[in-house]
């Protein structure tokens, strides 16, 4: 047992920290710190700063322009980035699609798409879920029928995160209705500018519209945009999901949220004393911190086992459940810390309007929207119920 980092890892951390303090734009960090909404331009700015440094794609091999970091380095970067209030990197192209293209794509697809993910020329979104296919993803119905050298796509995707910014969508589509549902699915890359693609925003409980419905009406997709083999898409989809689940514990996010929470609690007077001295509130915060301390080690245990060649399998379900519950608890506490100032809904402030008044402490306006938004953590990426089923089957053999 050795809980410490190596000298190289410590040096790596120092380098990351220096980079962040020099390059992360203050205006973006400030928005992230206060839970304000980031614009497309904010996200693109941060991506291009990282790309310039060669750090945009930590998980990619160097040959494709990635940083090729190991899991511990990625973990360190994640922690430092959250600590500095860097926004999260939009994962759809970088950590979801890219590994699939590297493993199953054609050379032409890799040549065409991978560089454009790094430069930001392409913004990808994930077209998996449909109105009738959520947890039961294999039930998806969007049809793709071969017509000469094109697939003709008809159907609907939903919950497409940041689809409003995207110009490409990777989709699971049904190419065979005669076989078992998992065996008739294909993985298609669709240019969203193609005639027949319509994107409609969905406003969520926090008042923002970060997800969309995407409709396909006789959309013609060239066959060269099929990834791998027709009808084998389920294999690629599952491979992608294992990558979606890296960093699933969100330790860095929880660290940053805890730090914010403690700062707010120490600076909020309730009943004549700081909220951090209120025994009921302080006990909740302490319990979250204790959980986080243990979870950091749980995470590293799982992650370092994977580093030695063992893929984190069902264990990542454990990280997903514990990690999301903790992040949700931290947002619930921040909301509660805001007291009555959590009530006003101030979209101008959340949109980053510089003169928009916060009416109360600076963290208050985003407290309730942030809490509501984070309900998604236990729903997407495989709901927590589905994860528990995985644990009970795969680990407990029940």
């Amino acid at each position, binding site marked *: 047992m050795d809980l410490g980092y190596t000298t190289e890892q410590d040096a790596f951390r120092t380098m990351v920290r220096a980079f962040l303090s020099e390059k992360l734009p203050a205006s973006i960090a400030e928005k992230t710190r206060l839970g304000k909404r980031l614009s497309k331009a904010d996200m693109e700015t941060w991506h291009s700063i990282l790309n310039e440094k060669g750090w945009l794609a930590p998980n990619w091999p160097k040959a494709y322009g990635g940083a090729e970091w190991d899991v511990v380095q990625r973990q360190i970067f994640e922690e430092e980035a959250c600590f500095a209030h860097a926004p999260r990197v939009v994962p759809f192209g970088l950590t979801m699609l890219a590994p699939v293209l590297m493993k199953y794509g054609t050379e032409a697809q890799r040549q065409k798409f991978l560089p454009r993910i790094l430069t930001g020329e392409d913004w990808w979104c994930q077209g998996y879920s449909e109105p009738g296919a959520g947890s*039961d993803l294999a*039930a998806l119905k969007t049809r793709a029928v071969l017509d000469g050298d094109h697939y003709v796509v008809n159907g609907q995707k939903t919950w497409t995160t940041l689809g409003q910014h995207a110009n490409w969508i990777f989709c699971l589509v049904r190419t065979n209705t005669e076989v078992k549902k998992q065996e008739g699915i294909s993985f298609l890359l669709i240019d969203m500018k193609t005639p027949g693609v319509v994107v409609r925003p969905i406003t969520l409980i926090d*008042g923002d519209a970060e997800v969309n419905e995407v409709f396909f009406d006789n959309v013609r997709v060239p066959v060269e945009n099929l990834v791998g083999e027709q009808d084998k898409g389920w294999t690629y989809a599952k491979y992608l999901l294992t990558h979606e689940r890296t960093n699933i514990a969100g330790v860095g996010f929880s660290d940053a949220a805890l730090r914010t929470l403690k700062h707010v609690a120490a600076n909020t007077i309730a009943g004549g004393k700081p909220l951090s001295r209120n025994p*009921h509130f302080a006990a909740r915060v302490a319990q979250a911190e204790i959980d986080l301390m243990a979870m950091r080690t749980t995470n590293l245990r799982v992650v370092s086992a994977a580093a030695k060649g063992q893929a984190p399998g069902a264990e990542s379900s454990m990280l997903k459940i514990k990690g999301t519950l903790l992040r949700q608890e931290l947002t619930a506490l921040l909301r509660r810390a*805001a007291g009555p100032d959590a009530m006003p809904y101030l979209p101008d402030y959340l949109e980053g309007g510089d003169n928009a008044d916060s009416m109360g402490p600076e963290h208050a306006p985003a407290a309730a929207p942030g809490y509501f938004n984070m309900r*998604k953590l*236990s729903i997407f990426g495989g709901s927590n119920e589905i994860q528990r089923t995985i644990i009970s089957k795969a680990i407990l053999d029940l």
Partner: protein
Amino acid sequence: MDFNLSEERRMLRDMLQRLLSERYSHDARRKLLASGAAYDTEILSELADLGILGAMFSEADNGFGGTGFDIAVVFEELGRSGVIEPVLAVAVLGGALIAQLGTDTQRHLIDQIISGQTVIALAHSEPGARYDIGDVSSLAVAEGDDIVINGAKTHVINGAQADHLIVSARMDTEIVLFLVSKDTRGLSIVNHANVDGTSGARLQMTDLRVSKAQQLGGHGTAITALNATMARAILAVSAEALGAMEAAKDLTVTYLKERRQFGMPIGKFQVLQHRMADVLIEIEQARSAVINLAGHLDAEPKLRDLHVSATKNLIGRVGALVAEEAIQLHGGIGMTDEYALSHFARRLTMIDHMFGDVDYHIERFIQLSSA
């Protein structure tokens, strides 16, 4: 013991249910919110015509109710339909204070309140005061026959829609209340929407000049009346939360039966069945807590306040559970603004931020029960 509603209250509830089911659809409510209006004035007057506002006042105050159970019955229905019209501000907060403290002239307002012609708001909370009702630092200073008030108020429920405001200020160390009309010089009011669709306001008082006749209640009466009013308001929002919980539960149960994944209704998954069973148990607890408080609303203050804090704490805990579980069991659809559940979830959550949250009331309960 009798846990049944009286005949009159059952009729009141049925009438209110009928009006709301005919006139208060989720779509209409969303359209109204999107228009930027704080509420529908027509609905408010229909509620008044039905006697809903009058039911919040005793016969001595020209109403025909005013007990804890009247408040509980009415607000449960308002909560079940997500009503944003200012019944709380007008008939519970403002109305109760005037009924307790008003002079004969001031009490004329009660008739106008009951008939829905006047909107009145309580401007008491101050920036940074959180849930502490004794934390008032606006200052009232006598100047000849007048009184001049300076200070700031926040989270004034329906403050910008009110014709009259009750403002509190400190005068010779005592908290004192004044009844002022909205366009008095020195009063500036800024409206904002709340997360749950209700409306609040900030209020600035700059050399706000009132006459002695505008004082509401004599010196030394305000804090007692405010405490009694808070008890009524907490009962109202607790019953409202109960209605919202029932609505959230009904939506979720229906959805569990309709939504199919893996070839069957998701309500067939035992893990979800058990979660819903727990939700039901907790909502029954919430109903009992509301009944407890309704039955002790007119008890001596210490016993009353023990129930106030017990109920508000329990409602806060159960409200969070119901909101979170209902969303989770729906999956993505539960998070959409278009679907009614997210509105109930927001209201349930925000009610914990009104008049003291779970932590505030558990601390107060400990103090009251150990004293």
